[in-house]
């Protein structure tokens, strides 16, 4: 019987892993990186995520929307309401005035993140026919999301560093952007980050790697703002269930003691 249970456990585990064992094609798997938010007790690194917001706002937001988030959500990253108001004081968002005429007004914390383009068609038109994806859940929408995003942001190879084999195999032209981790390698997005693309207020040195990991920390939070709540609840639930299971087992033994 024990063997039977073991066999079925293995079978189930295999079934479950089978579901995610989707072939990755020829693109290399992004290297595993240590994240502050990984593991059963991991939390978001507030400072990194706040820096990441700055990278998003100053660089990514020119093309990528973050439509599911509101500015008020930034308070979950440890900012006060006044700090948030200060951060968004220069952002103008579209609205209608009392006469129904379109106007721009200063953003409020309750506003959703401003979209860079008025609609998908405009976004596509400004980007060679393909609208840049919304980043709200991007960290969950890719296999190994955070690792992939970091690898993508740091994985550009300039044309003159490519081997002749790579140029031939992927038909790379001089104006193409080659990225080691993008499926098919040719990516429409030009390298978005470089050293010192932003200037951090906390004097952190803004290397490419630093900015990339900061913005991924921010996007991971944006994808799942309730992650810390989920893990905290999970610890309590599992501890409660373990205690309950112990009690149940003891009572079950007692009840059955006259039958064994």
């Amino acid at each position: 019987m024990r063997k039977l249970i073991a066999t079925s456990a293995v079978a189930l585990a295999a079934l479950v892993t089978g579901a995610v064992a989707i072939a990755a094609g020829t693109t290399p798997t992004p290297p595993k990186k240590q994240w502050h938010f990984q593991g059963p007790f991991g939390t978001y690194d507030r400072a990194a995520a706040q820096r990441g917001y700055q990278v998003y706002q100053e660089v990514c937001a020119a093309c990528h929307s973050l439509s599911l988030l509101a500015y008020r959500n930034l308070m979950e990253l440890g900012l006060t309401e006044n700090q948030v108001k200060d951060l968004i004081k220069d952002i103008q968002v579209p609205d209608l005035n009392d006469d129904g005429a379109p106007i721009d007004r200063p953003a409020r914390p309750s506003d959703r993140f401003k979209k860079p383009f008025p609609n998908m068609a405009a976004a596509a038109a400004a980007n060679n026919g393909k609208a840049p994806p919304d980043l709200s859940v991007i960290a969950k929408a890719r296999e190994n999301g955070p690792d992939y995003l970091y690898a993508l942001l740091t994985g550009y190879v300039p044309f003159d560093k490519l081997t002749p084999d790579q140029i031939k195999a992927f038909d790379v032209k001089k104006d193409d952007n080659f990225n080691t981790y993008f499926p098919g390698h040719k990516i429409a997005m030009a390298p978005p980050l470089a050293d010192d693309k932003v200037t951090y207020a906390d004097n952190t040195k803004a290397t490419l790697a630093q900015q990339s990991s900061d913005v991924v920390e921010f996007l991971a939070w944006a994808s799942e703002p309730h992650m810390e709540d989920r893990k905290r609840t999970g610890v309590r639930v599992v501890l409660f269930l373990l205690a309950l299971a112990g009690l149940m087992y003891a009572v079950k033994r007692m009840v059955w003691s006259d039958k064994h």
Partner: protein
Amino acid sequence: MASSHGTPPVFNNKVIAWIDHRLPIFSYIEKEYHTFPTPRNFNYFWNFGAIATVMLVLMIATGVVLATNYTPHVLMAFDSVERIDRDVPQGWLIRDLHMNGASFFFIAVYVHIFRGMYYGSYKAPRELLWILGVVIFLLMMATAFMGYVLPWGQMSFWGATVITNLFSAIPVVGESIVTWLWGGFAVDNPTLNRFFALHYLLPFIIVAVVALHVVALHVHGSNNPTGIDPKGPQDTVPFHPYYTMKDGFGVVVFLIVFAGFAFFAPDYMGHPDNYIPADPLVTPAHIVPEWYFLPFYAILRAIPDKLGGVLAMFGAIAVLFILPWLDTSRVRSSTFRPIYKWFMLVLVVDVVVLGFCGANPPEGFWVPLSQVATLYYFFHFLILLPVLGKIERPLPLPPSIADSVLKKKAV
């Protein structure tokens, strides 16, 4: 058994006695869930019926709450699910439990089905009980499939497109049926609307069939690991407190594993593409269903012909309906079937292999592998089972359940 045992209970509480005299629900509970004589020798595989019931209740409870916050419209469905996750108080928890609950409902039911097959629980006089179980399984598949469409991500949309398109394989009327299913000429808003309506409706039909399943179960009582019928009171124990406690313990252990996934790896069993909003103009590189459909998906793709594939896939479930008559052995439990026992485990491996085939793109060695595994699946049911029952020599059965329990203790 259930119809004949025990004397009518006497209730001391006047209110309960008054109600019971007019509507005997308390007598019913007393008879079917308290004194109900149950074989004393269940192993932990027998917990999974109770576990599946708990999961069904959990799915309905969380589902009703989700439905109050969900918008079944192609332009709003994706964002409304995200809104549940982000802005509805504890919405992330409800969605998490519902999303992972589906997987764990299937895990419970697959173990439950395996239990039934390994211990021959489908044999006379429990054929209808088994068939009702297969009906529940089919309803679950339909419900789960339509539920996966509701978040309107890429896999939702393309999964719905692939699966509804299967019906176009039916000669002559196929295309018309697909148009009728879609409510239009493509998977679109009418499809999403009706899938939402049906996803809300079907679970209650499942509850009704589960009720029939339980009624059928309580006519002859449960099977047990020896597969022999109880011969008297020494072979049984009252359902309560013996099995309420044992089931309760099993349910809690199962919930620990469930909580482990729901709270610490909620997206492990999902596909990342379903966090990309549905786009009818972009087909994902590989369209895969949820893990619990993968073996059937592999059978579908193993046959190079579309109609053949569809027939094979539905045939894979159809054979379960006639399983009681395919198995010619008079011995129920595999414990006493020295050859069949191993073939039963081979079938489990075969289904797992099919699952891997379904998860991988149909190219390279996955194609012949899924064909061999599909062939073996049908070989098991259609050839092996009828023949083996005739030629296998079963081990001697113990004289009684009590005897088998006491002998095991002496060892």
